[in-house]
């Protein structure tokens, strides 16, 4: 396989072009800085997870739980006394989530009986739901300790004379349970949420836009430039297959996009204190999926057009449209629903969702499986279409 020779040569040529290098790194950094600093204030309140709570217990523990929820900044907690009315309000999408605390919740917990907190969610708001689930689970874990202790005391027949003694035992047990002796995750769930600043949006937003410029624009242009310069013919007459030539082009374009996106995220982290989340592997996977899908789109553009200038204008139109609709310039959730639906067709929307899930909600690899899956699917479609259009004559 000789595709690496082609790829290395491509990158060497790219690095010679100082303007291209500046365009790829410096320009996005300037724009990210300007947009992030200028539009700073607007974002703080924008991401709120609204949740409706029905407290059928009205006991000590349920009140404590509600207080706990209210103290969490990004949660917007409202109360509703009627369970059925509450369910309707979620169904009507007035609220995204509903928590129902069951009747006798406090008593059950104290007496060492099992109980169940229900969360009812609007399935379209995946990431918010996951975050809420994690918060509630975290709290429930603590309560479970109580129940387990009471059950243990009862099972062993340890004599307890008063409620006070039970509390004492529970207290001691809780001390041992903080932090939980067996940890699945090291962090407690709610502290994983980063701060949502303008940079949480604009760093990935503009980084994705510029990666699209790189991969669709520069990627397709580099292929057509070779055709126009005749160097492509030279390669075709050499003992190297077309697949290897195209493979080399794909590799170099992917590599450029990947490095660009990674550098811009790191820039955001060090200069504007952007939280990158705790899962670097997940971030790497997401960046790779974005670079790959836009490389695929670049190849598709290259085979659909015939000249370098056409490639230039088609990729500019594609990039700018996807960036506007897909949420590079403003968060997707401020767009009307039908635009949000259309946005699902763009690389940008899925990329931005993925970034929100990592940089803000910190959901890790599991939290971006859907986004990465869609991007990979897009990649397959783009490459498939490109190959079917590609004349091997």
């Amino acid at each position, binding site marked *: 396989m*000789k595709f690496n*020779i*082609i790829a290395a*040569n491509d990158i*060497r*040529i790219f690095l*010679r*072009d100082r303007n291209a290098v500046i365009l790829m790194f410096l320009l996005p950094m300037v724009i990210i800085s300007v947009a992030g600093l200028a539009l700073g204030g607007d974002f703080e309140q924008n991401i709120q997870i609204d949740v409706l709570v029905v407290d059928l217990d009205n006991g000590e523990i349920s009140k404590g739980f509600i207080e706990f929820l209210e103290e969490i900044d990004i949660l917007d907690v409202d109360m509703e006394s009627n369970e059925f009315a509450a369910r309707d309000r979620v169904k009507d999408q007035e609220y995204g989530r509903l928590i129902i605390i069951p009747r006798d919740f406090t008593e059950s917990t104290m007496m060492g009986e099992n109980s169940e907190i229900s969360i009812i969610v609007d399935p379209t708001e995946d990431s918010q739901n996951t975050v809420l689930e994690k918060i509630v689970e975290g709290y429930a874990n603590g309560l479970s300790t109580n129940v387990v202790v009471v059950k243990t005391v009862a099972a062993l027949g340890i004599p307890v004379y008063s409620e006070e003694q039970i509390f004492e035992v529970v207290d001691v047990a809780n001390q041992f349970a903080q932090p939980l002796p067996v940890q699945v995750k090291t962090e407690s769930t709610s502290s994983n949420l980063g701060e949502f600043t303008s940079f949480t949006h604009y760093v990935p937003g503009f980084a994705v836009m510029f990666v699209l410029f790189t991969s669709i624009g520069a990627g397709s242009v580099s292929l057509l430039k070779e055709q126009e*310069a*005749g*160097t492509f*013919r*030279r*390669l*075709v*007459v*050499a*003992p*190297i297959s077309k697949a290897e030539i195209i493979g080399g082009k794909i590799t170099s374009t992917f590599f450029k996009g990947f490095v660009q996106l990674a550098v811009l995220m790191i820039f955001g982290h060090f200069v504007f204190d952007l939280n990158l989340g705790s899962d670097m592997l997940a971030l790497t996977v997401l960046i790779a999926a974005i670079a790959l899908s836009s490389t695929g789109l670049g190849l598709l553009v290259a085979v659909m057009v015939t000249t370098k200038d056409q490639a230039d204008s088609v990729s500019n139109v594609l990039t700018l449209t996807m960036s506007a609709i897909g949420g590079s310039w403003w968060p997707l959730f401020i767009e009307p629903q039908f635009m949000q639906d259309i946005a699902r067709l763009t690389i940008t929307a899925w990329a931005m969702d993925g970034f929100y899930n990592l940089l803000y909600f910190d959901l890790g690899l599991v939290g971006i499986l859907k986004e990465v899956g869609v991007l990979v699917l897009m990649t397959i479609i783009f490459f498939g279409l490109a190959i079917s259009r590609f004349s091997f*004559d």
Partner: protein
Amino acid sequence: MNNDAIISVTNLVKRYNGFTAVDGVSFDIKRGEILGLLGPNGAGKSTIISILCCLLKPTSGRVIINGFDIEKNNNEIKKIIGVVPQEISLYHTLSARENLTFYAKVYGMSGKALKKKTEALLDMVGLTERADDRLEGYSGGMKRRINIAVALLHDPEILILDEPSTGVDPQSRKRIYDTIRKLNQKGVTVLLTTHQMEDAEDLCDRIAIVDKGKLIALDTLHGLLDMVGQSDIIHVMTKGIQPDTAESIRQIETVEKVSVDDGNMTIQLVHGREMLAGIIDTLISSGTRVESIQIKEPDLETLFLHLTGTALRK
């Protein structure tokens, strides 16, 4: 088919969406010769060689190179031919050495062998000292030399050059000729295209004349000139030719062909010198104002006019 033919082309046809660019061409190239395809722009020369070097698929016909069929053994053929495209097909922001190194790797070379080969080629084309400069700063002739050097990296048995002397200053042209001759002496078979008869006359062992997609003659220079026989060519430059002048000239006894292009008239005739006075008389009496008149011995130009009725050089 000839046994010592290294390339054998039979009934080659290439159509582009209905337009026939190559129209049933057949010829053999002998091992070790320099063969030139001579013809005006648009004759189909580039199309023919693009097919030979596997860039284009023929519409029909058969091409055998060194025993390999072009439709089946593409890869075997690619290993033994070196192609010099008409345009400079190089990376302009890379240096000569980087260009050579890249293509050498594409041809599967590496390490010492690669280094040795690239240095030898730089030396051969006389650009060792400029080897690390970007091509951007090179003159046209220097770029062309590297363009040729790249085609020689894998020691091809056959070298194919498309218009190697087009747009080249006389000095570079001489250098390119020398290089081609030197390679040919080492046993490389050369196929080149040109629309300039000087290239064909000076360099080629045999010349194939191509016009409108057809091969209309193939022989040595002497053989071709014999076809014209005794004809001479008279070029007349005027300030404007009357419509019936050409007809009057055609009436002259030994005149074979007359063609008119703006104010220029080309006359092909036998015994040119003896007939010159009569021609001038006819021109003047028809009211043509003659600016200059030139008589030439038979050459490829004459031959082309003889065969096609049009001038090679427009």
